[in-house]
């Protein structure tokens, strides 16, 4: 049996999705990125810590949260990868390194590990977490501590 590209196909009508993702309940997190800060949350009742920030506690099901500053202090890289083949929506970016770091506050963060060349990232390297203001939408990144 021979299969492969079709000799005929019908082009579907195009559709574009752009979703408006609500950020009301974590507004301080998004605002503080502008100041270079990255915040998680901590449940006032049971003390469970969250990153990414959560407005509701999945442990005790209450919704009364404190903010915790994760830019205060260092973290350690648990694992990483260099992403070479990127999705089309990241085609304008250079290749990037994604790492998961465990912060001293006890939460883990997945983010780009900036300021390292391919092959320089190491499991166990010390990093800090910083907010990254940008007109296209603020983000955050992990940076090696020299």
């Amino acid at each position, binding site marked *: *049996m021979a299969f492969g590209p079709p000799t005929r196909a019908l082009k579907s009508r195009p559709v574009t999705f752009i979703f408006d993702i609500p950020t009301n309940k974590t507004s301080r997190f998004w605002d503080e990125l502008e100041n270079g800060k990255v915040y998680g949350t901590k449940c006032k009742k049971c003390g469970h810590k969250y990153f990414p920030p959560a407005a509701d506690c999945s442990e005790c099901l209450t919704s009364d949260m404190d903010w915790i500053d994760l830019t205060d202090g260092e973290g350690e890289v648990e694992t990483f*990868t260099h992403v070479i*083949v990127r*999705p*089309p929506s990241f085609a304008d970016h250079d290749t990037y390194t994604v790492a*998961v770091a465990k912060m001293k506050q006890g939460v883990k963060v997945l983010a780009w590990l900036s300021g390292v060349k391919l092959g320089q990232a190491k499991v166990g390297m010390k990093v800090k977490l910083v907010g990254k203001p940008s007109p296209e939408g603020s983000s955050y990144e992990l940076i090696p501590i020299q």
Partner: protein
Amino acid sequence: MRFLSRKVAVVGIGHSVFGDRRDANLPELAFEAIKPAIQDAGITQKDVGFVSVGTAGGWYEEFLPAVVVAEYAGLTGAGLVRCEAACASGSAAVASAYNAIASGQTDIAMAVGVEKMTEVDILTSVELIGRAGYYLWEFHNFGMTFPAYYALHATAHMKKYGTTEEDLAKVAVKNHKYGAMNPYAHLQRTMKVEDVLSSRVIAWPLKIFDCCPVSDGAAAIVLASEDKAKKLTDTPVWIKALGISSGTANISKREDFTSLRSGTIAGQNAYAAAKVKPNQLDVATVHDCFTIAELLAYEDLGFCERGGASKMIREGQTEIGGKIPVNVDGGLKAKGHPIGATGVSMAAEATRQLRGQAGKRQVPVKHGNALAHNIGGTGHYAYVTIFGRD
């Protein structure tokens, strides 16, 4: 865990050729699996009381596809649902059809798995699969891809246990060896360790030949209650247990990256419910969407101790004739991974092996047990199913 009293058997299997199947649309491709499954079971569509369709979707034109698939194959009127559990959608469909019979709701049910992934260009599929982790926290700002998720696990496993890129390559070599013998496989060709190691890096340490291809395909099984199964066939293959678990959406919330906890728990639950131990399995299909995933599965499923997977692959213990043959249908790596079809394809392969119908790829059947391990996402969903001749 408590299990329902009605036994459920696989009594019919069907499989399309996996691959670049731009010659067929979604229901036409599903038909290629449904028709042989119905014929194999010796029933007609009117006998089927419930149909579950496993498909992730999003990359083909039908938005709510189950009804399209059912109508085209003459299954209109049966109870119908679409099941989604990312790359484990097919096993979710098997579980749904199993439950319809075990609960007494119906006596004959079908699980159909189907995916059409080549109607969009390959980079669009990279984009869509990358969004299948947690879009808001891992894709929006960081552009995660599925190879990248598994690469995080490869890096951690290599660091902790000394697993090498060559060990990963050996998984690809083994699975292509068997894929070359499977007429339903997407990539029916062999590969050498050097081919894998010298292939293009996708997400370090994973290279293109560490990754499964983007495939179209369909698989279908017919399930029946004990009474019906004994009337329909002399070789029923029983679903002895289903172990199901899940992991966090945020990969950053995982305890570590050297195993998939959900897969471990699903496996433990399945072994306990089936009263089967890992050394009583004749064959296993495990979720090798990337080579590292197969090594994680050896450890998570107790085929070896933690950190022992690289030794297993180096020694050929997971080839036919070894301790436990794994993915001797080519696995996702060579057979292909049409997302929703994979779990149903695994059930079909377990049945084929336990019936002794696998031809050149047939394993020796001593214990009469087979295992299927199907992971959705990066341990986001986990389904482990144990099949048996008794």
